[in-house]
């Protein structure tokens, strides 16, 4: 959910782009973080915990904690809270530790 009105802030966005979350087409703004675009679409689960496969989402949102690692364009362990959204990106829930191909 995006904030429409704010007493202090005005949010400026890049151009609208399409991206894919686990294959589903979504819209976001170029240059915003992937996590922001997913939250705007109501998606808050980013990965599974390694051992117990519990759902995990954002925790720090500034690139510190690694709670939000996802697979982006085939690359695992991307911190989506700081990675910027681009047209056509393929973002997937990360399961396990991820492998570099």
């Amino acid at each position, binding site marked *: *959910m*995006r*904030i*429409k*009105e*704010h*007493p*202090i*802030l005005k*949010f400026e*966005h890049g151009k609208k782009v399409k991206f894919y979350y686990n294959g589903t087409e979504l819209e976001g703004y170029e240059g*915003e*973080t992937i*996590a*922001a675009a997913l*939250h*705007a679409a109501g998606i*808050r*689960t*980013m990965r599974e*915990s390694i051992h117990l496969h*519990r*759902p*995990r*989402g*954002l*925790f*720090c*949102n*500034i*690139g*510190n*904690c690694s709670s939000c690692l996802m697979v982006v364009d085939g690359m695992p362990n991307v911190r989506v*809270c*700081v990675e*910027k959204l681009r047209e056509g990106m393929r973002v997937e829930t990360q399961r396990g530790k991820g492998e570099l191909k």
Partner: protein
Amino acid sequence: MRYTEICIIGGGPAGLTAALKAAGLGAEVTLVDRNDYLGGQLIKQTHRFFGSKQQRASERGINIARELSAAVLNNDKIKVLTEATVLGYYEDGVVAVEQHDKFIKIKPQKLIVATGGAEKTLAFPNNDLPGIYGAGAVQTLVNVNGVKPGKKVLMVGAGNIGVIVSYQLIQAGVEVAAIIEAAPTIGAYWVHASKVVRAGVPIYTSHTIKRAWGDQELEGATVVKLDENWQPIAGTEIDFDVDVICLSVGLSPLTELLWQAGCKMAYVPELCGHVPLRNENLETSIPGIYVAGDVGGIEEASAAMMEGALAGLNAAKSLGYHAPDFAEQRAGVLKELEGLRSGPVGEKIRSGLAKVVL
């Protein structure tokens, strides 16, 4: 290898002020930050600051960030590397940096570490469910990204961050069900606390979170009252159907680089974790390595800016730079810091700092 007189790690309030002060004396500075912007966590602080004029009181954090960043970017003496993550500090004094998938080595004569802090979490069942965030994370989401974290929030912690973020959530159109605080008293300044109470948010002191629940995401939480020994009182449970919990239970200093450099460290609860020992000039046990801001103990942005000023001035002075009003500038900064840490509010920080003097 890149050579520089002073390398500053971290472009938040402490690092930016350090850069401006050091460059002001004539030193050549390289400022490194992992983000693609400068300002650190100031960029999400929409509230007005307290303190004196020199600490930019009554200005909003976002405007302070804008002004300091512009001043740094327009200063010929300061070279800025953004999207640049410091990976390590080597024993020969080399700072290893990754920028745009490239490995860069920087060899500074003096180093100022201003890496800030990280949010703490809290132990309770299901504390890992999506929907449970650090309060600062939600502040970033709402004030920087312009996106809501969910519909209804339970804030854990009634210190300044918890109370201020609660108010900012309301400003963004998000419902705050309650603020709970394990301590018997509210830690935040009264002016902030009374604002959220006026907005209709109850603050439950002596309450903690017992457990959260939810299938794939957070659906609610049970809160319980604590007795004077901080033990839960059976039968006092309250359920909240919230889809967001914000944890505002403190920060800890981000000191990895200082450990790596071999700085003498001490665990000081009042400063929120392991912190470096330092002298009056904010120089650590390793000559030439200075600290400024939350990395040396969690305080507030106003104190971080003053520490940055002090570290910047002293690092430049140690390289032989001078200004006719140096003593005056330094004394002014020390006086501001003393003011910020005075009175009952500053008691914790004063007792913490007394334990880390070299």
